[in-house]
């Protein structure tokens, strides 16, 4: 699989189909990988693929430093590929401006990441070239997809508040969650705006709640569950629970799953006349 990946990258660079390949390279220890940006065909041996390729490389599509390198080919797992569908849908990217090298994946991380438990995109849904044997994508029910939320939704109001306050009070407002997020692409984030100051910038419980709720909400109907925010959080806040909760509500209310079907209207950019009236008096 690695050989096929390198060969494809070499071919793309030689033919000048792309200027750069975003991929995974070996890290300082075997259990780690790092993102690499290959611009010369002779460097393709730096590319690798294994279960430690956890990163969602599509986040570099929003970074000016990476964009300067020219037209990219990008190595994506099934989950990461969903990001590209959303970025195209949100007019952040043109399909022809990117070459997608999809890799089939049976789960990453050690121990395996939570997102891999109910993975239904072992084979990416969108790609130009597929590396690895095609895997039949599994199907999960609504309940199976959001099973992780059950134990938190069961809590009483008081327990929920206490649980989340305990989590949010750890937040140091480093904004790693939004820096890593491939879909947090605003040049000026709401937290950077101070006239008026909507979100307290200091790491104080008051601002921590508004930041974490707002960050999650701005991904409502958009998050593709790559879990990168949660992985990079230095305070170990289970941020993906919030994202997942919103994904669940979006699917329940609007039958929409982010990144699965390029033909679907973006959930939060459209409406239906018969949307749920339940909460309105």
């Amino acid at each position, binding site marked *: 699989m690695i050989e096929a990946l390198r060969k494809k990258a070499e071919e793309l660079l030689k033919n000048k189909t792309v200027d750069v390949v975003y991929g995974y390279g070996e890290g300082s220890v075997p259990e780690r990988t790092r993102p690499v940006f290959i611009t010369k065909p002779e460097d393709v041996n730096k590319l690798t693929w294994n279960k430690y390729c956890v990163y969602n490389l599509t986040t570099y599509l929003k970074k000016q430093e990476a964009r300067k390198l020219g037209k990219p080919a990008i190595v994506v797992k099934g989950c990461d590929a969903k990001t590209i569908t959303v970025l195209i849908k949100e007019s952040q990217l043109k399909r022809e401006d990117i070459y997608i090298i999809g890799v089939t994946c049976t789960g990453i991380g050690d121990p395996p990441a939570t997102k891999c438990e109910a993975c239904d995109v072992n084979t990416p849904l969108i790609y130009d070239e597929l590396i690895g044997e095609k895997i039949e994508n599994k199907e999960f029910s609504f309940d199976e997809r959001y099973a992780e939320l059950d134990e938190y939704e069961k809590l009483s109001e008081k327990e929920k508040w206490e649980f989340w306050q305990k989590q949010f009070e750890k937040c140091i407002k480093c904004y790693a969650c939004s820096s890593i997020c491939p879909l947090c692409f605003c040049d000026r984030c*709401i937290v950077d705006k101070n006239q008026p100051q*909507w*979100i307290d910038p200091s790491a*104080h419980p*008051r601002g921590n709640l508004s930041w974490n709720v707002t960050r999650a909400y701005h991904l*409502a109907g958009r998050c593709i569950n790559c879990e990168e925010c949660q992985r990079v959080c230095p305070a170990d806040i289970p941020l993906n629970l919030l994202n997942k909760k919103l994904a669940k509500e979006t699917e329940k209310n609007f039958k929409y799953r982010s990144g699965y079907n390029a033909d679907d209207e973006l959930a939060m950019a459209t409406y*239906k006349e018969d949307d*749920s*009236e339940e909460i309105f008096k």
Partner: protein
Amino acid sequence: MTEENKFEPRIVAFLCNWCTYAGADLAGTGRKEYQANVRVIKLPCTGGIDPLFLIKAFERGADGILVSGCHPGDCHYNSGNYHARRRWNVYKPLLEFCGINPDRIQFSWISAAEGAKWVETINGVVDTVRALGPFENYQKLNTIGSDTSVSSETG
């Protein structure tokens, strides 16, 4: 607790200019009485209400919030309330998931002709939130640490 110190909830109501605000106005011109716990904030459209407004209101000491606009199909800007409805349909469960009582955030559609519905709705919100008591959980967040300027803002 003496009668004078009885808890009176602070309710912030975000109303759209065209329907609910006019409805509340109608209640006034019709000399209908309702509980004076509500602070009305008039906005052009429910579609323009950022969810952060709600968080900010709680931060500044609100015990309950009402968001109200035109009935579906009646939006002055055609679709503002439809977009708003989508947002609240996911935002409310998110706040609930974080441990905020759903009765503290209420939504309604009240037209310019429904002065009576405004009276009934706002009284309902005030009574519900009064029964819930002050939103101490959130208000306590403000007082953590030595920053005292915050408490004077909320007072």
